[in-house]
C-alpha cells in the first residue's frame, strides 16, 4: 500500500537521495542524448568540433614546448607527448566549464520538475566524455604516423580516464552549485580554465618541473597539488610507455586532491540542492 509513500519535510529530500538518483537514471541518459543531438543539429560540422579543438590546442602547445625547449623523455616525438596531455586537458576543461554552467542553463527544468539535481552536471560530463572518445582518434593517427607501439600499460588508461572524470565532476558540481547562488562564478569559470592550462603539464612535462633546480620545493609541492597534473602524468605514463617516469609522491597528492574536490563538491551540492529552485 505504501510503496510509493513520500514524506516531505524540511530536510527530507536527503533520505532517499541515492535511490531516487537510480530511479532517474533514464533521465540521465536522455539529457546527455539531447545535448549530443542538439549540437549535431545546430552545427554544420557537428562531431568534427570534438576533433578540431584538440588539434588546434595540440599544435600551439607543441610549438610552445619546442620554443621553450621542454625536455623530451627518450625518443618520444613531441607531438605525441603533447597529444597525450591535450586530450585529457580538453576533456577536463570542457567538462568542467559545461558542468559548472549546467544548472543555470537548465533553469527552466529546475523550477518546474523534481529530479535529483546531480543528474544535470553529470549528464553534461558524459557528453564531454563522448567527445573525448571521438578525439582519441587524433592520438591513434599520431601513433600510426610515428609508428609508435604502446605497451601493456595502455590497459590502465581507463583508470586514468576515471580520474579525469572524478576531477572534472568534483570541481564542476562544486562550481555549479555555487554558480546558482553567486552568479559571479560565471566569470570565474573561463579564468580557471585559462589559468589551468598554464599550470598543467600540457606544453611541458612534469619532469621539467620536478627536475628543475631553479624551482623551489614549495612551488613543486603546489604544482603537485593541481589535480590535472596527476591525470596528465598518468595519461602520458600509460600511452608513451616506459619513456616517461611517474613521480609517485606528486602523483598520489594529485589524486588525493581530485577526490577531495569530489567529496567537497558532492557535499556542498547536496546541502544546497534543496534550495536551488528558490534562488536560481
Amino acid at each position, binding site marked *: 500500500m505504501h510503496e*510509493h509513500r*513520500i514524506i516531505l*519535510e*524540511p530536510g527530507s529530500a536527503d533520505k532517499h537521495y541515492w535511490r531516487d538518483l537510480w530511479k532517474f537514471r533514464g533521465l540521465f541518459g*536522455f539529457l546527455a542524448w*539531447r545535448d549530443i543531438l542538439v549540437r549535431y543539429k545546430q552545427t554544420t560540422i557537428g562531431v568534427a568540433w570534438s576533433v578540431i579543438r584538440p588539434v588546434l590546442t595540440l599544435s600551439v602547445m607543441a610549438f610552445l614546448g619546442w620554443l621553450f625547449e621542454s625536455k623530451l623523455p627518450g625518443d618520444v616525438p613531441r607531438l605525441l607527448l603533447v597529444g597525450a596531455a591535450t586530450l585529457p586537458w580538453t576533456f577536463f576543461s570542457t567538462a568542467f566549464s559545461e558542468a559548472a554552467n549546467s544548472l543555470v542553463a537548465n533553469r*527552466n527544468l529546475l523550477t*518546474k*520538475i*523534481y529530479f535529483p539535481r546531480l543528474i544535470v552536471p553529470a549528464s553534461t560530463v558524459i557528453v564531454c566524455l563522448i567527445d573525448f572518445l571521438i578525439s582519441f582518434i587524433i592520438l591513434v593517427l599520431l601513433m600510426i604516423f610515428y609508428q609508435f607501439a604502446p605497451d601493456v600499460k595502455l590497459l590502465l588508461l581507463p583508470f586514468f580516464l576515471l580520474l579525469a572524470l572524478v576531477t572534472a565532476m568534483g570541481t564542476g558540481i562544486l562550481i555549479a552549485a555555487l554558480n546558482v547562488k553567486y552568479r559571479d562564478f560565471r566569470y570565474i569559470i573561463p579564468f580557471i580554465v585559462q589559468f589551468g592550462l598554464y599550470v598543467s603539464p600540457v606544453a611541458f612535462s612534469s619532469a621539467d618541473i620536478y627536475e628543475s633546480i631553479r624551482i623551489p620545493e614549495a612551488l613543486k609541492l603546489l604544482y603537485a597539488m593541481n589535480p590535472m597534473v596527476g591525470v596528465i602524468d598518468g595519461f602520458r605514463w600509460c600511452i608513451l610507455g616506459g619513456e616517461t617516469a611517474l613521480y609517485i609522491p606528486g602523483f598520489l597528492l594529485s589524486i588525493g586532491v581530485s577526490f577531495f574536490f569530489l567529496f567537497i563538491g558532492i557535499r556542498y551540492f547536496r546541502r544546497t540542492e534543496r534550495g536551488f529552485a528558490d534562488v536560481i
Partner: protein
Amino acid sequence: MSEPIISVEHLTKRYVIQHQTRGSYTALRDVITEKAKALFKKSDPAISSEEFLALNDVNFTVEAGDRVGMIGRNGAGKSTLLKILSRIVEPTKGRVVIDGRVASLLEVGTGFHPELTGRENIYLNGAILGMSRAEIASKFDEIVAFSEVENFLDTPVKRYSSGMYTRLAFAVAAHLESEILIVDEVLAVGDAAFQRKCLGKMESVASEGRTVLFVSHQMDAVQRLCNKGILLDKGTVVATGAMRDVVETYLQLNTQSASTFQIELPKGFRSEGAVAEWLSIEDEQGRPTNELPFGSPWQIRVRFQIDRPLENFIIAIGLVTLLDFPIRTTWSSLQTIAPGTYDAVFISDGIVLTSGQFKITLGLSVDLRNIHYIRDAGVLTVSDVATSNKDPRIISTGAGVIMNQMEVRVELIR
C-alpha cells in the same frame, strides 16, 4: 474511513526578499546616485530584506479519487503549494505525506527542445516527467493520437504552431501513469477546442479513480472538473469543501476586500489647484468591489480636492489594457469649479469589457492642460464569472476587449 492520499500539516514556506526602499517616484538621477553610492558602500541602507510567508500554516487532506480545485488570487500561495507537492521546493516548516506517485504539470512543454523533432521530444519530455523508455514506447501511439501531430512527428518542434506545441506537450504529461496528477493553469494556453479536450482528458483521468489537483483562474473549468475545493488567500487556507461552496466564498472574499486606490503624490509635487486623492471601483449600487462580475454595470469614483477657484476644469479617466493599449478615454464637461472636496463618478454605459484587468489613467486639467495626471492610478478587474441575470447577447468568448454583440442583419441579395 479510508486514509487520505495527501495530507498536509502545518505547511509553511518562508522566503526572504530583498528590496530597495525608495519613494514612489523614481528619477534617473536618483537611480544613478544610488548606484554610485552602492559602489562605495558594502551594505546599502536602502536595501532591506523582509521575510515573506508564501504559505502560513496550511492544513488539508485529499482523499483518493478526489478532484480538487485550488483557487485564490494571484500571490495567494497556490503555485508555491504545488511546487512543494511536486518536490521542487522544500517546505520551511510542516509536513506533507503523499501516498502515491505524483505527476505534475506546472508548465506546458517543460524541457521541450526546439531543435528536436516531435518524436524526440516525446521521449525526452516523458523521461523528464519520470517515465521509463518502455513506458513511453507503449504509450507513444496514444500520445501522438491525442496531440494530432502525426504528420509532423519528424519536424523540429520549432517549426510547430503554438497550438501543436501545446497539444503535444499536454499529451505527454496527460499519459503519465501516476496516482496523483497535479496541473497548474495549463489550460490558459491553447484554443477553446483544445481546452475542452484537455478538460475531457482530465475528467477521464479522474474517473479512473486517480486523484487530480487542479489550479485555475477559470471558475467554470474548476467547477466542471472538481468536486472538492481549496481556497487560499495570503498563504492560508480560507475555505475547503464542496467546489461550488468554495467558489462562492472566493467571490464573496473579493467583494469584501478593499478596492480603493490611494493616489500618492510624487516628491516635490506642487498643487496647481486640483489634486486627486483616491479612486475606487464600485458596483452599480456604489459598493466598493475588487472584482466585477463579467457583464455587470460598474462605476469609478474619484475623490479630489480643489483649493482655489478654477475655470475650464475637466476631470478625465482612461482605460488601458495591461499591455498598455488604450481602450477608452472619457471626461467631464468643461466647468468652473469652486474650492472644496469633490467626488467624480464615472458610470459605465452599455460597453461590456472582457474578463481581465484594465489599468486606469486619471487626469485633472485646466484649459486642456493637465495639472494632475496619474498613470496607473488604479486597476479595474473583471472576473470571468458572469452575473446570474445574464443578457443572452453578452457572451464571454474571450476574443476581443468589448464583448457586446452588435446588431447583425443578414440579407439575401440574389
